[in-house]
């Protein structure tokens, strides 16, 4: 083997060590970069001479250390967590409407019955009568407040849906743009490296917004939404759209115009749609039903008696024609204290019919429960929905920490490890440099062979 060949081996060695030092340098530089997968170098023995003698080292390339399966699990879990977070945040706001403190529907309902009961002690007392009307007004106001709060919340969520969908479309475009580049890299046998890290981060951002499924194809990653509609195929992305449905609520449609709202369950969009399309409409219906049945029952009790002037009792509450919108539109039908039908025999001093009015409190409505119990059930419903969303958010957060731990264990940069590598590659480089010096000396010796200087 010639000195030149040895020099070649030394140069290869220097190059390989420089490459390794670069990888280490890059790892250290990205130690705190979110989504970075550490890179390793893979030195290989060079093809040997025919006599089997070693021929130095070749740097095959850089390899990012990552697990696609782990990445998919993290995306999956992120979708669930974002959905739970969106629900929790919205329900936290909703539940303040149904507090058990002062101005809520339950309290105002009790206050109305209390004022009616007090009126029975002195049915001609106009200040007691006024207090019944005032309590009625307060109850009506409580219904309005609750109904408005839910409607306002829903309107706010419509904006959120539009925003989410536009973000999803923008992310899908970016992911699609990376697909051809990654495909080209892979076809040339190279590692996706930084580009793959970028795409994984984009997928993670997309997972925060909606549920997607990812399949690897030879054209890169194909993304589909909950019901299988393609979002990204190869270098192409397909935009989702939003339309307003008949109830004034935003729904999501695929490029073909099909309504895919119900298929979106994950991510911020999934959680938002859940609250917007399910939770709030259900609560509004419960509120409307309560307002309607309560008002109807009170009016029926009024009709059984006589007012202070001896006339048949008229309506106490006005209600819309149907159940829908009752909570928003229920109002007091009268501001005249004499119209309260306290009397059961037509004389002004009789209080016989007040018992019929207070009996509404303990009589089951068509909901199958008394007004107070119906309201208590709503309170329970809102409370447990919020508690469930909170629990799910906490649970998925814990499991995400686990998954991220695993990912960091595999792909994360260890400064200690890189520091050690730095020393190792530095020493290897120094050794290779020494080889070059040695060979250089040998050349000198060879050049001056036979001269006096050599002896």
């Amino acid at each position: 083997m010639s000195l030149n060949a040895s020099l070649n081996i030394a140069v290869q060695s220097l190059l390989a060590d420089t490459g390794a030092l670069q990888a280490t340098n890059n790892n250290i530089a990205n130690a705190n970069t979110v989504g970075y997968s550490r890179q390793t170098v893979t030195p290989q023995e060079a093809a040997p001479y025919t006599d089997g003698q070693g021929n130095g080292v070749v740097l095959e390339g850089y390899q990012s250390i990552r697990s696609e399966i782990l990445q998919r699990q993290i995306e999956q879990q992120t979708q669930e967590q974002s959905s739970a977070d969106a629900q929790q945040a919205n329900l936290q706001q909703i539940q303040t409407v149904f507090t058990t403190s002062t101005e809520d529907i339950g309290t105002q309902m009790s206050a109305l019955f209390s004022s009616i009961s007090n009126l029975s002690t002195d049915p001609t007392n106009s200040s007691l009568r006024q207090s019944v009307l005032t309590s009625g007004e307060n109850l009506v106001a409580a219904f309005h407040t609750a109904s408005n709060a839910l409607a306002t919340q829903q309107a706010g969520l419509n904006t959120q849906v539009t925003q989410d969908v536009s973000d999803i479309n923008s992310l899908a475009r970016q992911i699609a743009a990376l697909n051809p580049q990654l495909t080209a890299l892979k076809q040339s046998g190279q590692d996706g490296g930084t580009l793959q890290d970028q795409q994984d981060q984009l997928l993670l951002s997309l997972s925060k917004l909606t549920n997607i499924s990812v399949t690897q194809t030879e054209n890169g990653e194909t993304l589909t939404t909950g019901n299988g509609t393609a979002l990204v195929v190869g270098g192409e992305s397909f935009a989702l759209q939003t339309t307003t449905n008949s109830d004034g609520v935003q729904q999501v449609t695929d490029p073909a115009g099909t309504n895919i709202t119900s298929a979106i369950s994950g991510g911020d969009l999934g959680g938002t749609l859940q609250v917007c399309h399910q939770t709030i409409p259900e609560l509004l219906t419960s509120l409307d039903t309560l307002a309607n049945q309560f008002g109807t029952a009170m009016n029926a009790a009024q009709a059984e008696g006589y007012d202070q002037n001896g006339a048949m009792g008229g309506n106490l509450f006005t209600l819309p024609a149907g159940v829908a919108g009752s909570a928003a539109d229920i109002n007091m039908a009268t501001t005249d204290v004499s119209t309260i039908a306290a009397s059961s025999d037509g004389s002004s001093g009789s209080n016989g019919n007040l018992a019929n009015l207070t009996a509404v409190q303990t009589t089951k409505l068509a909901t199958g429960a008394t007004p107070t119990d119906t309201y208590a059930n709503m309170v329970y419903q809102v409370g447990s929905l919020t508690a469930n969303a909170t629990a799910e958010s906490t649970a998925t957060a814990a499991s995400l920490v686990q998954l991220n731990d695993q990912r960091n264990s595999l792909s994360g940069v260890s400064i200690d490890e890189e520091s050690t590598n730095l020393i190792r590659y530095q020493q290897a480089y120094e050794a290779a440099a020494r080889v070059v010096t040695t060979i250089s000396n040998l050349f000198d010796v060879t050049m001056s062979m036979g001269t006096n200087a050599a002896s």
Partner: protein
Amino acid sequence: MRVTNSIADMQYDMQQSQQDLSVALEQVSTSKRVNQLSDDPSASANMVRSLAASTNVDSYTRNVDSVLAKLQTADSALSSVVTSLNQAVTLGTSGANSTMTDANREALAMQVQGILANVVAQANTSYQGSYMFAGSDTSTMPFTSDAASIGGYVYNGNSTVNQVQVGDSISVATNVPGDQIFNSGANVIGSLANLISVLQSGTLTDIGTATIAVSTALNYVSQQRVPLGNSIAQLNSQESYLNQETVTLSTQQTSLVGIDLATAATNLSQAETTNNAVLAAAAKVLPQTLLDYLQ
């Protein structure tokens, strides 16, 4: 396992312990375990029911107070009627004595006349602007003079009895209709009017009979006072029951959403200890790298 310089774990632990700390702090500062519905949905729902029950108890208590005042007024009016009737019986008995002169009897008749006027005045007693013995026709004076009626007075009220709820399943009558006390059974007003007329122009036997009739009426009114007295006694005992119920309900509400200070304080100090431990651990681990030792 390959351990890397990931600090996510540490951040998660710190966040968790901070959250526990803030929950504990909130519980101490509000003395409440349930600060929002989601803290305990079923306790919150029970709270709605318990608060409704409290409001009812408060309203029953107010009802008891106002009915009690009303019934006491009615009772004292009837007590005055009984006294008057007793006087009338005494006067009638002395009028039946054969030693009495017509002039004396005329004087007795005048006195009974005064008693009748007093009884009618009591029968027309009003409480807070409403006539007490007019049934539910509380705005009309129940007894007015009417020559055509027996005893010279006509009843203008009705016989409705108002009931007021003072408990979930307890109602009490708040009035006794005037016709029931003064006109039906033994007729109080009629018997007094009759005594006056026989004192003026009747025989001794007539006076004796008329006096017995007044005495019967007296017994009747006394009997009518009994249910009234019972109602008053019932209201008094209901009031103490309601007071006790208020305490029971407020205890229930405290146990539903409240937290006792000792528990809350213990929780807080535990949360503080944990938080300090997590922070101390983080402070120890975070700055450690190999580079510290490669000098």
